[in-house]
């Protein structure tokens, strides 16, 4: 619901607030300041009503402070994001260059390039239908990829990985403001908590998740929410709970590639941890089959090789209740052995470079 005063009143009748001072401060003093003030130009649209181009300067809670482009610097009005239907930030986003870098797995460079461009708009991503939310999410993802890439370098990459996860966390957190209007907004907020888990800031991650509403089956955020829960449990060394949460993640979501393989891999790891190695084998097999040529696929295949070489699943299982109920049964060990043979890496093949996770 748009407040009547927010359209015109926001411009004309709204309280004038001194930049950097309390509302009760002398207005004349504020006019003299703010020669080189920070801000981001945005076009705000109200369906079938007004359009305005304004400079957003800061926010305090829900309230966004702005000035008209032709107003003297230092004099601001305010509105709330929900007062508008659309927003278009007037910033140049180097999408093409970033995409090129990303396609070369130069994740950190791509992330930084985007980040510099979108940074002024980040505090205002709750403006509906804005054009920066999606690049912001892309930026955060590039940081995550950069962190994963750095982590794979081993000890030497750990510091970089932390830096990138921290940056990813900050961008995701800001992108989380879009939860009010974009279906991925809540996912971004949850992704922020996942970054916290990676950073070992578990209590903060827990608190962050607790503030978010628990999604229902069918919600976009379902998969990532339960993945975050699973990662938290796992980080707290509770593999049984982590397993349950990971299963919830991939069972009811729409097989989003941003969560589905991670949830499966975590479930497989948990199955190993709770000593249900037959099931770990089955899940690794699923991942290796579904995601060949990716880091997930390669890691799953490596775990399968380990399990099979150590003959960890040779011990026969109890009779399958499904076999009893439906009259079916299959030899998974045999299937896995066949799969491993079929996908055996050729000796002269090169595996250099990072693969897209």
């Amino acid at each position: 619901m748009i407040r009547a005063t927010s359209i015109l009143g926001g411009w004309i009748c709204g309280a004038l607030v001194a930049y950097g001072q309390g509302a009760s401060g002398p207005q004349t003093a504020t006019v003299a300041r703010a020669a080189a003030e920070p801000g981001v130009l945005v076009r705000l649209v109200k369906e079938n009503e007004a359009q305005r181009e304004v400079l957003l300067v800061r926010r305090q809670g829900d309230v966004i402070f702005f000035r008209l482009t032709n107003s003297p610097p230092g004099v601001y009005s305010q509105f709330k994001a929900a007062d508008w239907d659309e927003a278009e930030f007037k910033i140049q986003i180097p999408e093409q260059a970033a995409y090129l870098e990303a396609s070369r797995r130069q994740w950190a460079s791509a992330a930084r390039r985007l980040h510099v461009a979108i940074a002024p708009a980040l505090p205002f991503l709750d403006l509906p239908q804005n054009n920066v939310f999606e690049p912001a999410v892309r930026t955060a993802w590039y940081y995550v990829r950069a962190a994963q890439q750095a982590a794979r370098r081993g000890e030497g990459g750990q510091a970089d990985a932390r830096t990138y996860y921290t940056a990813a966390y900050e961008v995701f957190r800001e992108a989380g403001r879009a939860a009010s209007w974009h279906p991925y907004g809540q996912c971004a907020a949850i992704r922020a908590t996942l970054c916290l888990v990676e950073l070992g800031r578990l209590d903060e991650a827990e608190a962050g998740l607790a503030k978010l509403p628990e999604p229902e089956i069918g919600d976009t955020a379902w998969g990532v929410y339960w993945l975050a829960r699973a990662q938290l449990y796992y980080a707290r060394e509770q593999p049984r709970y982590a397993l349950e949460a990971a299963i919830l993640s991939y069972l009811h979501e729409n097989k989003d590639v941003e969560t589905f393989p991670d949830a499966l891999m975590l479930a497989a790891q948990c199955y190993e941890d709770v000593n249900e190695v037959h099931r770990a084998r089955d899940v690794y097999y699923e991942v290796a089959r579904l995601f060949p040529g990716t880091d997930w696929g390669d890691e799953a295949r490596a775990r399968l090789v380990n399990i099979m070489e150590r003959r960890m699943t040779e011990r026969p299982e109890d009779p399958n209740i499904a076999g009893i109920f439906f009259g079916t049964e299959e030899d998974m060990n045999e299937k896995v052995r066949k799969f491993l043979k079929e996908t055996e890496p050729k000796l002269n093949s090169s595996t250099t470079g990072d693969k897209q996770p």
Partner: protein
Amino acid sequence: MYPHDLLRLNAQTQLERWRLQVRRFQRYLGFARELLRAQETVSEIESELQAIEKIPNYDVELQYRIARGYMETRRLREASELFYALYKDAPPEKKEETLYLSFLCALRIRPADRCLARGHEYMDRYPGGPHYDAVSLGVGQIYAAEQNWPKVLQVLTKALEVHPKHEDIAEVLFLLGYASFMEEKFADAQGYLGRIVKEYPGSEREVDALYWLGMAYMFDRKYEEAQPNFDRILRDFGTAMYAEDALFRSATCDYALSRFEEAERKLLRFLERYPESRLRGEALVTLGDISGALGELEEAVRRYKQGMEVPDLNIELYNHAAFRAGEMLRELQRYDDAIRHFEDYIARARPESNIPLAIYWIGECYWDKGEPEVTLARFLEAVEKYGGDRTELGVDLILEKWVDRTRGAGSHGRAAWSRLRDLLRRALESRQYTLALRLERVLMYSPETSDTEKEAMRKFILRPESLKWASAGVLEWIVQEAAASQPQLAREAAETLVRDFTETDYALSARQLIAEQAIAEKNWDLAIVQYNIIREVFATSDAAADALLKLGKLYQEKGEYDLADQAYRDFLAAKEWKARWPEALYERGRLWMARGRYEEAAAYFERIYVLYGGHKEWVGRAYLARAECLAKLGRFRGAIETLEEFVGRPEYADLPEVAQAREMQERLKAKL
């Protein structure tokens, strides 16, 4: 393959995005081509949405197949979760099956809380449903695996109520029987297990039922009823895993029924047939008991000692064997052997060995050998070493014997008292209150302790602060000493005894005191609790007999006549108390009188003087009471005849009731 709902949702999301694009292009000039393209896309998505709407929703079927796929590949967590989600959304005809399948998958998942939740939901939602039997049994089995016996009873009793012809009736009855046994509801256990044997012969549970039925009777002390079940296993199921145990239990029944030769024969066969049995030690100790009962002390000692050598022999049996063997050696006057035996016992010092008690017996052997100074030295050694531990009951036993042993030891006795006094001083200095309390209690009986000192010691012990330090012996003394003068302290001491020394004989007198005080305060419930514990814990003792009679009276006082009658019946069922049956019959008669049932009461009184004429102390009362009953029924002539019979019998002439009978006769004649 994507679910129908998801396809529709995705299409709707895309539609909204493209509509927004259209609006954006409409807002600015110069985007005519883009606007046209966006409008075309909107139109295409709208058509797609219409097409999707026309396809019947296949999501339930799709999810069902996915869940089934998980189930078939043993991904039971996933399958259970998905079936359950389906149950929530499925059309009515699929609900029951999906909930059942969710439960079935969860059966193999640990921990079992999810499975139990699904199982209970099924049983609540579909009582008598197509899979009700399987679910109720599964839930019962999980509770059994968790040893949650009350829940087993709750679930499966209900299962039999819902479906008396349960598809796995023998299994359900077995679980009910076993759970009842574990809950010590032996009569119920006998009922359930007996049904398997009688109604379902040949079932897979028959042999299990036989064994546990035997055990249920045995724990109920019904050895006559127990034994045939063990013997049947030996006869018909000789290769069953229970055969070994059944042979041992059968022998135990013989022993309990005092058929010692038969018990011995079976136990020797048992040892020969199962030399590696985990019951070997217990069998040898029982053989020792048998030899002891038959008066063959040398053989008993040999068997006890053999039993003690069996590794891992239960500590209670080990202690029993050790002390019985030592006592017998002493009885055989083989004092040196007895001393050596107890010294070996002390040297082995298994956890929970009763070292002070062993020292006590060593001391007694030296006494018997005529070496009182060694006796007192060993006693002192035990007191000094173990007297600070209030749980060492052997120290209390030594101190109970102390006065007597010092008295007969001449100068050694006086020296021993002196050393005890030194020990007390050191105990007080080092604040070893448990030891100090023990020593003060015994020093009050020292010939060298003045009256003033005695009074000071008495006051020192009779304080509430003493209770937490006091040993069982001291607490018992406080209970007795304070009963009249400081009833509150006596009560607290009794409660401490019961709490801290529950399993010992000391707790008995404490419970009796608590019960007596409760009766004085008309707190029938508390008294009933205490007497019930006495009768259960001290099952065949005289104290248990007294407790049962008290219980009868207390229940009668509360108007709970059936429970009162049950108490008397329990009394009359115990052969050990045969000598006191007339008393129980008399009380039972009184109970029926109180209920106004004079006919039945008269029969009980008559039974006393007909069957137990030798118990003269009850015969007189029985005649009078029967006459009173008949008079109440208006049968004055019968009453007078009863009294005449009593008065006319010369063997009762000296009973005080004769005079009362004569008076009563006169009164009744006047009414004729």
